[in-house]
């Protein structure tokens, strides 16, 4: 799973570069995110700007990241394409996650 990262104060922005997060690569994606959490990262923005498609196993990996962050952690998502937003709606997960249009909004929400 190719993934860029940027640290903005205490907020880590992760940018998956693959066009799809699905069964073929969802374990690798989850592993990469959970690694950051285990290293102590507590505030994560997942910027899905390059992601055109997520299936249920990719969504499961994102849910798993949220669980791994626990009560003292915070996760926000941004850059959701139409098909990805469609998945979040179909599974009602748009009510669980903090979703933002832009990376800036997501970061500033988590920063303070």
């Amino acid at each position, binding site marked *: 799973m190719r993934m860029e990262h940027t640290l903005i104060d205490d907020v880590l922005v992760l940018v998956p570069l693959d066009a799809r997060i*699905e069964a073929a690569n969802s374990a690798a994606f989850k592993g990469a995110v959970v690694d950051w959490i285990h290293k102590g990262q507590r505030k994560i923005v997942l910027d899905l700007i390059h992601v055109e498609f997520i299936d249920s196993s990719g969504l499961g990996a994102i849910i798993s990241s949220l669980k791994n962050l626990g009560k003292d952690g915070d996760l926000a998502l941004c850059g959701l394409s139409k098909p990805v937003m469609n998945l979040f709606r179909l*599974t009602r997960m748009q009510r669980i996650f903090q979703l933002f249009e832009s990376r800036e909004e997501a970061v500033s929400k988590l920063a303070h």
Partner: protein
Amino acid sequence: MNESRVFPRIRLSIQSRLDHVFLVGKSAWALSRYAGFGESEADSIELCLVEAVTNAIQHGYRGEKDHSVDIDIILFSDRISLVVSHGGQGPLHVPKEPSEVDITDARSLPESGMGLSIIRRVMDHMTYATHGNVHVWTMEKRRSDE
């Protein structure tokens, strides 16, 4: 025309490899659009097919890569039909719709098992049948009238 209408039908076949599933997803998306489904409906149809084919590989073939999964797509005048067939293991039972998730408690969120419920939500029909050694999942979605 003398003959009865033969609805457009295509068979897609891939190896049972998770990293090849996108091929059928993309094809189904394009065919759905051509058949008159909107973009977001085509997104949902692609998603359901990816879920069903992934199930065939992960559950049917237990992740073994050297088998084949066949998908028949039929464009009826009022609906699209997607039929996923594999020669692996059938399901012990087809799980029923899972109970509603308690969204107030993140720890209770599911990390798997969402595939079939997505299919049930999007599609108008989903049926499972077995013909000899072949396991067949059929999904149908009607075109909403414009």
